[in-house]
């Protein structure tokens, strides 16, 4: 692998030199000499993901998924080999513009893939809007990315925060619950999910009686659980993820609330934590754009290939990374690998129907997946699919003017 990269580098240097002589200019870039040369050069893909810190497993899953999509196409997209440029964004929003610039200015990448943390994604959005580089966001759900910050070169293959809890609002009302309490960390993702749940739940005639917030990243829930018991709502909806989700689900059971007040949430609450929470999550219902036991041909093939390649079970993040690869492939196929034809590439991506393990999806005008949201139930150690909670749900893209 390393050797190959070295050869590729030398060839590019050689090409650069040749171009420079031909054009008699010191600024020997590839594009002036035309498509033929450019297509032989490797496609420069920047991966800006968390490879240290809490979100490391997510960054790794996305990377694995993306590379799997490339491998399935013989290691090439649009007929061109790939050269990766990797930056660890450390989930640090303060460094986001600098890290994005590193990829775009220093490494001169053709496309940026990233990231997990919404704060970092907002920083990336600023830079890619200024530079016009194509950006595919394989996770961060901040509504703004395909809302006020939307742009022709900005794409997302995951979800918007709005989507999953909007579908959940209907489900909770359909279960016959009239009142609900929403509990989450006090930060943008939590507030966005809360507000779309509230929209849907109250539109159906329910009443969100209380919004409970915990300062991020605290996990001392006892006071808020006591408050929930004193309010006695029909249902509780929670958004936490990772370690906080494990602790919340366990504390909910220990406080005796499980079985008395049903607990719902977006799927992030029960994804990747079921090994740790034991039976405390059993029977919980959540909504997400992916689920266990979808049992489609595509999903089965994907899971098998993923396990074979990485000796790991894929999760929703791997799917999102895989689809980022598929979306990029669609764009490059449309222009036969000529990445200079940005408009054509964007058109190709907009028109693509992505054959995702989660189920095929297309993109909305603001470039967010128009996708089915599944209702899942925790059975054993799996988030088993029960039904489709919302069919082809499109984010409203509030504030998107592009």
């Amino acid at each position: 692998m390393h050797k190959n990269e070295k050869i590729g580098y030398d060839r590019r240097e050689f090409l650069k030199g040749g171009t420079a002589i031909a054009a008699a200019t010191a600024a020997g870039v590839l594009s002036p000499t035309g498509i033929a040369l450019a297509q032989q050069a490797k496609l420069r893909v920047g991966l800006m993901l968390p490879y240290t810190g809490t979100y490391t497993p997510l960054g790794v899953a996305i990377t694995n998924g993306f590379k799997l999509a490339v491998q399935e196409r013989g290691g090439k997209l649009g007929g061109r080999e790939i050269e990766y440029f990797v930056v660890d964004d450390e989930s640090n929003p303060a460094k986001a513009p600098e890290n994005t610039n590193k990829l775009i200015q220093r490494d001169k990448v053709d496309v940026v893939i990233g990231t997990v943390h919404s704060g970092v994604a907002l920083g990336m959005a600023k830079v890619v809007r200024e530079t016009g580089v194509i950006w595919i966001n394989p996770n961060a759900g901040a509504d703004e990315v395909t809302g006020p910050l939307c742009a022709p070169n900005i794409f997302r293959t995951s979800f918007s925060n709005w989507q999953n809890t909007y579908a959940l609002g209907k489900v909770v009302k359909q279960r016959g619950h009239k009142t609900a309490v929403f509990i989450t960390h006090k930060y943008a993702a939590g507030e966005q999910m809360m507000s779309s749940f509230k929209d849907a739940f109250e539109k159906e005639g329910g009443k969100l009686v209380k919004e409970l917030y915990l300062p991020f990243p605290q996990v001392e829930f006892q006071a808020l659980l006591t408050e929930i018991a004193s309010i006695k709502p029909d249902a509780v909806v929670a958004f936490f993820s990772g370690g906080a989700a494990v602790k919340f689900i366990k504390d909910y059971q220990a406080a005796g609330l499980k079985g008395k007040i049903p607990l719902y949430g977006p799927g992030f609450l029960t994804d990747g934590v079921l090994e740790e929470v034991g039976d405390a999550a059993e029977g919980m219902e959540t909504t997400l754009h992916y689920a266990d036991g979808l049992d489609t041909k595509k999903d089965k093939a994907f899971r098998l290939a993923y396990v074979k390649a990485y000796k790991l079970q894929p999760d929703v993040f791997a799917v999102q990374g895989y689809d980022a690869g598929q979306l990029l492939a669609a764009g490059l196929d449309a222009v036969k690998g000529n990445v200079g034809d940005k408009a054509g590439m964007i058109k190709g991506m907009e028109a693509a129907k992505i054959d995702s393990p989660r189920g095929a999806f297309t993109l909305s005008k603001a470039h967010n997946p128009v996708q089915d949201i599944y209702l899942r139930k925790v059975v054993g150690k799996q988030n088993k699919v029960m039904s489709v909670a919302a069919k082809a749900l499109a984010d409203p893209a509030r504030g998107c003017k592009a």
Partner: protein
Amino acid sequence: MDFAFFLIQLLNGLQYGLLLFLVASGLTLIFGIMGIVNLAHGSFYMVGAYLAWSLSSLTGSLTAAILLAVPLTVMLGMGLERLLFRHLYRRDHLYQVLLTYGLILVFEELRSVLWGDDTHGVAVPALLSYSIPLTDNLSYPVYRLAISGVCLLLAAALYFLIQKTRLGMMIRAGASNRDMVQSLGIDIKLIYTLVFALGIALAAFAGMINAPLSSVFPNMGSQVLIICFVVVVIGGIGSVKGAMVASLMIGLADTFGQVLVPEVAGMIVYVLMAVVLVWRPEGLFGRG
């Protein structure tokens, strides 16, 4: 909120405060007696939690894990004191900050190499794994009450050790004048080693007994570290009594803040700290 729920919230606040005390007491001891600013205190809390997790999954019992892990952390503390901290007592605080910040990075990396980056849960010991019903829909986990009991016992033991024993007298003397104590023929180096190890063991022990409640995850130490510094600053640097009072104040402020003014709950403990510092810049029980 009716009266019953008010009482339960009071209990929540006290219980959270006692837990904070357990972590903060080690920090204030090392800070006050040895003059060391130990930014790595949270890392020792994390080490304790990860030890509790890995040893309890090996032995199948949290109690056994704690019995094994406490001597390990005492040795870790003594080793670090001899190798590193000993050379910095007379240096400026900046050197200690640099060293202990470096230790945070080293411990995070070691944790990543040894134990990975995943979140893990630790089972509550079967004996304590039930809840007492308080109202028709709320129960109180017995393990939380047990932890509060352990915290109270340790607080009493610390008080006894420092105020009533000969060793405690030497520790207090060493804190106020190291050279004088040494010239009286007391092995001050040994005492410092012991105090440091005790502080580290307290932090690690807090991580261990809290592991079933907090779960075990990367960077868990930094969350604890910040709130502990708030406790130490409010209570007065070096005062164990102050740490106790400040912990309970913060526990209560945080608990009622979350319920009564959820919008600004994250700020309340810091506002409390600011108010105390304006009123008493040296902290509640500081020596000024």
